[in-house]
């Protein structure tokens, strides 16, 4: 107790030196907190999505962002499968993509003819019905037929979002398509062929209950390949695929997808040709683009009021649900880890230096304590008490500042308080624990050396 008080008073007396140690610890803790919050923390992977989408338009999804699946219950479910027809989410969650989709047990369709006219929120930039049809594709001359999905793209809207290349407004209604630049595993590279053969099942019913297809009756269309598109993947995903992180950050990487893009008008033409009537009226999902990510929640609330039966999700909410279901995706933390440990090594060195200065300044004092009868252990304790106090204060400070920032970010994207709390505790324990450990290791050598120097040389001369 007394030693602790002496340590604290000494820290206060040598304020600038103490502050230096404290700040270096705080910086290291801040870096670690940031790293954990970003790469390892909360919610897993969401950061990358945020980043990928920052500054771009953000989709507020209506219920149909999640597609029907065989499960039951109220919650979103993660279904394993390759039902191409159901993989709309891939477009927005490329990371989810390859092996499944999100499903809601209860399904309703949006009747485009009866959408509330109140979609006039000033934050809403565009409302996009997502149009898609299950099809089978093959390269002309080949017998290999692959399941795929034909997607209609609104040329005006989508160009901005996905930077589609190859369509012009005059293509609307023409039999043209874009194929993914990245070929899904097992697929031929469609982009090397001038045209694709698409077999479209007959539409039996298109109504409020959804669209029912008869897959035994198909009609062939030949689509001219106009070009390629690509879905940027997140950095994490690219790294998970074994690419260099720095390179991936420059070029986010692109994901394979089995979707064939056609202009919206073209899709409607095909739809009518296979028995659909009156164009797409009942759609599975609505994408609502908002002006700013920050206001997404507000828009979602607004939409929810007007579509009480629908479940409206913001992108971060869906990402969270998806990550929760999909489990952890391998995130390369090597770079951030290294960085973090370097920061702590540096902080540790500063602390060590500080401690050496401290014990040099306090040589006489330590000698006096020994003369009075303090044991080496007590002297080590006193010196370490000061180091540790500074280190813990610094760690708490660095943690609180950075974590506070992330808390604001994550609470704004509507994360459950319980999870935020738990994760915050975990990160706090890690950061402060590592900070204390660093300080302990850094302070140990100087304090032991100080305790071992004999009192006689200390007391001899001024």
């Amino acid at each position, binding site marked *: 107790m*007394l030693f602790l008080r002496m340590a604290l*008073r000494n820290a206060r007396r040598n304020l600038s030196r103490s502050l230096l140690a404290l700040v270096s610890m705080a910086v290291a803790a801040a870096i670690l907190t940031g790293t954990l919050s970003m790469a390892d923390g909360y919610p897993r992977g969401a950061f990358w999505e945020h980043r990928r989408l920052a500054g771009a338009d953000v989709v507020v999804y209506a219920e149909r962002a999640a597609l029907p699946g065989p499960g039951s219950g109220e919650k979103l479910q993660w279904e394993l499968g390759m039902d191409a027809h159901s993989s709309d989410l891939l477009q927005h969650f490329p990371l989810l993509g390859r092996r499944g989709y999100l499903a809601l047990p209860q399904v309703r369709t949006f009747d485009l003819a009866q959408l509330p006219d109140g979609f006039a929120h000033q934050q809403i930039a565009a409302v996009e019905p997502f149009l898609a049809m299950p099809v089978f594709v093959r390269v002309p001359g080949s017998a290999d037929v692959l399941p795929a999905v034909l997607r209609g793209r609104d040329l005006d809207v989508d160009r901005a979002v996905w930077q589609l290349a190859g369509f012009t407004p005059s293509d609307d209604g023409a039999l043209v398509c874009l194929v993914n630049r990245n070929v899904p595993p097992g697929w031929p590279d469609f982009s090397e062929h001038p045209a694709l053969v698409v077999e479209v099942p007959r539409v039996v019913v298109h109504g409020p209950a959804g669209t029912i297809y008869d897959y035994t009756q198909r009609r062939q269309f030949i689509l001219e390949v106009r070009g390629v598109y690509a879905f940027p993947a997140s950095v994490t995903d690219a790294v998970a695929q074994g690419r260099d992180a720095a390179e991936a950050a420059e070029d986010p990487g692109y994901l394979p997808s089995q979707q064939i893009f056609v202009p919206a008008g073209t899709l409607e033409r095909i739809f009518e040709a296979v028995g659909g009537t009156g164009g797409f009226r009942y759609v599975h999902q609505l994408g609502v683009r908002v002006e700013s990510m920050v206001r997404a929640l507000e828009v979602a609330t607004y939409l929810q009021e007007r579509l009480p039966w629908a479940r409206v999700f913001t992108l971060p909410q869906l990402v969270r649900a998806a990550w929760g279901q999909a489990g952890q995706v391998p995130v390369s933390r090597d770079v951030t880890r290294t960085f973090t440990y370097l920061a702590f090594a540096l902080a540790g060195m500063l602390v060590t230096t500080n401690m050496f200065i401290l014990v040099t300044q306090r040589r*006489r004092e330590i000698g006096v304590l*020994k*003369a*009075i*009868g*303090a044991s080496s252990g007590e002297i080590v304790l006193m010196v370490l008490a000061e180091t540790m106090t500074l280190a813990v204060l610094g760690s708490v400070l660095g943690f609180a500042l950075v974590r506070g920032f992330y808390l604001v970010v994550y609470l704004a994207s509507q994360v459950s308080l319980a999870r935020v709390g738990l994760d915050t505790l975990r990160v706090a324990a890690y950061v402060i624990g590592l900070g204390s450990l660093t300080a302990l290791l850094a302070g140990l050598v100087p304090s032991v050396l100080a305790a071992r120097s004999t009192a006689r040389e200390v*007391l001899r001369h*001024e």
Partner: protein
Amino acid sequence: MSEPILKCNELHKRFLVGDGVDAVKDVRLTVAPGEFVLIMGPSGCGKTTLLNLLGGLDRPTRGEVILKHRKFSRLSENELARMRRTLVGFVFQFFNLLPDLTAAENVALPMRMIGLGHEEVARRTLELLDEVGMVDRASHSPYELSGGEQQRVAVARALANRPAVVLADEPTGNLDSQSGNRVMELFSRFNARHGQTFVVASHDRGFREYATKVVHMLDGAVVRMEDRTGAVTP
């Protein structure tokens, strides 16, 4: 003469620098309880080194120090430290109060280190500060005290645990004569009133009048031992 409280035989200290410096050469000394021993001699004659050896702050090259039947050579560093807590009080030339503690806390420190109860520590601290005339400065930090005042607090600290012996190295060396006299009077008062044993190294001739024994050193060796109670040994 009563059983010595502090004793050393053929105490020798050689510092291994250059050709080697024999700072203390075969010193034999016995200190009886209640004695006031003054060690005198020119600068560099080995007074500080001898005191360090007697207090267990340094280990002799040869010889033995025995304090209250404890042979220092048999004690580990930590045992020596524990021994100092209860048996030895130090007073230094440069006062050496702990700068982060108040006067009272400095005095209380040795008592707290041996685990005395709070109330007893508080009571005895006051008592000691009173005896050295520093009660009204109890809560002052060492920076706020003059050299003489600091030294009086240091004396109180050295006496806190009623040590078997107080070792003082030039306790007046850094004080003006008036403050020095006050410290000397304190020593003599504790010696006379409480029978406190002192071993003081000093150039200050003023101490002679209080000393029961004066040890004259030259070049590390005791050249003359003056027993103020009578006899002089060569």
